[in-house]
């Protein structure tokens, strides 16, 4: 259960923080699969000072497959695949004349994939499991599209992230509880700054572990060491030098022993050069580790 719940799909902001679901690896031959819809619409963003400024209403929708499979008891492969990604912005309409000033546009494509391999540094069943994960960010999404060259479904850069997770699980009364923390270093190419990523997650199984409630904290801090901002790229959640600290909650319900549904919400306490709006996700999952 811990394994499954901890790897539930997070919002796009957080998925890269807690990719591969904490320190718990899958058992050999077991897996966890999730199809989800994540979305974010925003009409304001965090500026470089942390204040919020308005912007044209923009939306990003990702239909994603998240899959985790145990090659061995200590080696798990993970893929996050936004199979369909949609980015759009609204028409800008004159309030004076009612005429369209800037025509809204949309872009539909696949998004950037994350492919990860997670290795358990501790033996399966350890009191405090620790795992290391290498994630490769594949720039399969598009960038700089549309008449204004501002639509994108990816950041256009290849990145590689090394991440360490540690956690534990315990009983609180008759409730199963797990807790895990993560830190990561994300190396980005094409002039993007490197990033330090961190996160904490706690989950509790209720109703005989059919309902899991999860809370998350996470963030990204930029090393600000990239090249000067490219004027033709970067927007919304894909900008360079973005930073944020966010929180999220999720509920996952096992309808059957292996099949379940989930819904999540995430928002930011603070941010810098990033959309300022909550994101949402709903999904169905299939847990073969049960």
């Amino acid at each position: 259960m811990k394994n499954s719940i901890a790897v539930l799909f997070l919002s796009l902001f957080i998925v890269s923080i807690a990719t591969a679901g904490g320190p718990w690896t899958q058992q050999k031959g077991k897996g966890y699969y999730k199809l989800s819809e994540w979305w974010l619409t925003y009409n304001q963003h965090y500026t470089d000072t942390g204040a919020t400024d308005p912007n044209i209403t923009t939306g990003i929708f990702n239909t994603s497959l998240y899959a985790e499979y145990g090659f061995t008891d200590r080696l798990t492969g993970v893929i996050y695949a936004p199979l369909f990604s949609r980015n759009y912005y609204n028409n800008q309409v004159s309030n004076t004349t009612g005429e369209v000033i800037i025509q809204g546009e949309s872009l539909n494509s696949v998004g950037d994939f994350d492919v990860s391999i997670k290795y358990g540094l501790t033996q399966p069943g350890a009191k405090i499991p620790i795992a290391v994960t290498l994630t490769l960010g594949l720039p399969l999404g598009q960038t700089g599209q549309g008449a204004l060259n501002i639509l994108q479904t990816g950041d256009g850069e290849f990145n590689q992230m090394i991440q360490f997770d540690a956690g534990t699980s315990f009983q609180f009364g008759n409730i199963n509880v797990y807790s895990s923390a993560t830190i990561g270093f994300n190396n980005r190419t094409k002039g993007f700054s490197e990033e330090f990523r961190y996160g904490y997650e706690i989950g509790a199984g209720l109703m005989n572990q059919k309902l899991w409630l999860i809370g998350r904290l996470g963030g990204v801090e930029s090393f600000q060491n990239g090249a000067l901002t490219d004027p033709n790229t970067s927007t919304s959640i894909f900008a360079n030098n973005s930073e944020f600290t966010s929180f999220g909650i999720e509920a996952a319900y096992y309808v059957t022993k292996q099949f379940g549904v989930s819904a999540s919400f995430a928002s930011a306490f603070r941010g810098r050069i990033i959309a300022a709006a909550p994101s949402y996700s709903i999904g169905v999952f299939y847990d073969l580790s049960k």
Partner: protein
Amino acid sequence: MKSYLIAFILVSLSLFGCIKDDFIEDFVEPTLRITTVPDTILVNSEYQFEFMFLNNIGVEEEVNAVWSSSNTDIIEIDESGLALTKTIGIADIKVMYSNNEINLEEVATVRVGMSTVEAITERDGRIKTTSSYTLEGDFKLSENQGQLTIEFFEDYRASTALPGLYVYLSNNPNAIGNALEIGAVETFSGSHVYTLENIGINDYEYLVYFCKPFNVKVGDGTIN
């Protein structure tokens, strides 16, 4: 499980964002502007005056305006704005336009003398931020042989944090739909120059800075 998958797909499809409308407050007072204003016109010669009418969103419209001279003994002017100077002196040239909603006029005081001297060859202003991003600095516009130069000085500063900062010439400080895109900002501190061809020094009233990816205004400066 099959029904759950179908329900999930249906809900997902319903969430795919449709393009809606964002309304922009882009009203500006309509203006009538004489765009060719000489300081002095050579006596016994012709001079073509021109004007520009900008509507309530700052877009130029073709309208029929009426030209007149305060002293036809010094300057006569016909309905097309073609002036004929007759004797040395000073007269006011006025252009008027009216419709059911507005009555506009602009007056230029013109000398008639021994040579023709163009009056306005330089304008200036100061850009300022209208957002949370840093943007400030003095600038000067100058026109020479059909070439417009926009010069920024040492006190210019712009935030490097913004993705896609662009600068425009516009007649509406709140919208860039009809603005002239000068280009992406590549200098974020200190003096620099933009050079534009076939743009008159009186064609625009504002320098406007927008962040293209966020489609949001960052700052502006009125051209004095």
